[in-house]
């Protein structure tokens, strides 16, 4: 977990965990609560959906979360246009009392890939309205530059399609994002399936990871939440400890000098 020497600041806020979690599709609210605790997260994502009239069912889920102390990051999940996303973000600010928004503008129904044009358009409008925008994007450097130029302090590139569990499709591209945006907070969002995917993201130099399905759909979400927390921590520690470079050839780790049966004498 972040130490004083490796403090994690997100949008100007000190955070205790580099793992952010979604709250959807858990087997039960109790399992969700336990998983959040096991992961030690501080920031969770929520969405907004149409409320049915005469809905007398309890909102225990929301009552628990709003008094739990978790920092809420509302999303604009499923929005297909900049207008939908901007309005949804405004509704989120009204409902949750936060100017944070995880901005999603979806461009493809099969892959749920971001619509870069709608994303940039919505980002511009929301930043003008005082939002802290966490844009869900791809690894595209040009889009990232536009978002940063508009005022984004945080970029959230996908690893692979939402919920696919494929991990990181293009690690070199994410590495390049890190290289070209050294001062921007990078949070890997979408497509994570295994703990090793999250660890890899941190080893690439990302500042944090956001995931949902890999924990919610695990056989043991509580155990998996704990595993991911440890994986993110391990990846961050590895990154700070200085990973070795890959080589195209072998290099023996045991010194050749003094090897028995080697040519040359050792007297």
């Amino acid at each position: 977990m972040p130490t004083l020497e490796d403090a994690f600041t997100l949008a100007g806020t000190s955070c205790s965990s580099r793992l952010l979690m979604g709250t959807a599709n858990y087997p039960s609210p109790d399992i969700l609560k336990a998983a959040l605790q096991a992961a030690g997260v501080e920031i969770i994502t929520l969405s907004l959906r149409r409320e049915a009239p005469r809905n007398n069912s309890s909102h225990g889920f929301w009552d628990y979360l709003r008094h739990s102390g978790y920092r809420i990051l509302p999303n604009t999940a499923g929005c297909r246009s900049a207008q939908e996303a901007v309005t949804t973000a405004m509704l989120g600010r009204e409902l949750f009392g936060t100017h944070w928004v995880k901005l999603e503008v979806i461009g493809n129904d099969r892959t749920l890939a971001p619509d870069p044009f709608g994303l940039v358009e919505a980002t511009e409008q929301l930043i003008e309205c005082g939002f802290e925008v966490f844009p869900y994007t791809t690894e595209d450097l040009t889009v990232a530059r536009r978002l940063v130029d508009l005022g984004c302090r945080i970029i959230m590139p996908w690893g692979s399609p939402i919920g696919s569990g494929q991990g990181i499709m293009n690690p070199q591209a994410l590495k390049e994002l890190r290289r070209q945006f050294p001062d921007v907070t990078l949070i890997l969002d979408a497509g994570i399936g295994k703990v090793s995917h999250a660890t890899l993201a941190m080893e690439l130099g990302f500042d944090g990871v956001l995931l949902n399905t890999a924990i919610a759909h695990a056989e043991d979400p509580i155990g998996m939440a704990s595993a991911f927390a440890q994986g993110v921590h391990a990846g961050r520690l590895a990154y700070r400890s200085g990973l070795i470079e890959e080589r195209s050839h072998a290099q023996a780790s045991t010194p050749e000098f003094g090897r028995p049966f080697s040519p040359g004498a050792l007297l």
Partner: protein
Amino acid sequence: MIEIIINGQTKQLEGPETLEHLLKQLGYQQDMLAVALNHSVVPKSLHRSTLVGAHDHIEVVSPMAGG
């Protein structure tokens, strides 16, 4: 009679009425709601003074789990 769309459904009203009255009439009781009228969020404090008229689009939302 006028026609509005609320949460994607068409509804007929006798005439323009306040947002507060409309929500009450439809049975919205939860305090954790946010409302947008024609893509503009209407704060709760303005529900009583905001009129809903012909062809208006309303979205009524509440918190939900999300990723």
